[in-house]
């Protein structure tokens, strides 16, 4: 069996890639995808601990995280569509509705 710390390290690396995507990319849809990636990395940690401790609660939390992620993706993409209709771009640098 693979040791727990390998899964935790992989999860950390995936989370870091998600953070980099949110900070570096300009396409708002790709930023939403990177948020999904970060949620996935955290889910991996939860499942790892749940399985290594033999406790189901962690996997139920993962189940709820997936449901919230689905809701977040639906609302986030609807907002993107609404903004795109107004500004015809998905570049986050152009979204300056609240500036000043």
């Amino acid at each position, binding site marked *: *069996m*693979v040791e727990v*710390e390998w*899964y935790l*390290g*992989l999860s*950390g*690396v*995936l989370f*870091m*890639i998600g*953070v*980099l*995507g949110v*900070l*570096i*990319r*300009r*396409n708002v*849809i790709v930023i*939403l*995808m*990177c948020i*999904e*990636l970060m949620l*996935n990395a955290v889910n*991996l940690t939860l*499942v*790892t601990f*749940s*399985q*290594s*401790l*033999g*406790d*189901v609660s962690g*996997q*139920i939390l*993962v*189940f*709820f995280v*997936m*449901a*919230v*992620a*689905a*809701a*977040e*993706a*639906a609302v986030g*993409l*609807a*907002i*993107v*569509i*609404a903004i*795109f*209709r107004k500004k015809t771009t*998905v*570049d986050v640098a152009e979204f300056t509705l609240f500036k000043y």
Partner: protein
Amino acid sequence: MAQILFVVLATVAIAAALGMLISRNPVASALWLVLELFCIAGLYLTLNAQFIAVVQVLVYAGAIMVLFVFVIMLLNLTALPRLPHFDWRRLVGFLAGMAILVQLVYVLATGLDALPAQVSSEQSAVTGSAQQIAGELFTRFAMPLEMIGVLLLAATIGAVLLAKRKLT
């Protein structure tokens, strides 16, 4: 055997995540993310969490990614124009991401002794089964489950309202 499987899945997962980060076309990014999600589902299987692995493929790789691809197609996107000059914000973002990775690895390294003992793989196969999860989900976590249902309904209505052509 388990080690080889883990290394292969982990490598592909990291490569797919980097591909998503680097590719300029949003459709390519979405497809890389699908590959990454499948790898994570495979990793759940190596952890004996069968139920979560199936839900991962159904919900993430199925529903959420279809939503993303639909929106990308709907908006008829092309790649954003390349930045003409060096962007210092990218450098700051890269450094911040690396700082987070260093912090996570540091916490992991200092906490290695505190990791609890692993249960046997027969035991964890029981923990990850749909029967076990459903038993907890519909008894101890019945109330949160109902609330998740309400949340999804609210999100659906909100998404329809936001994406409607005209708000009246």
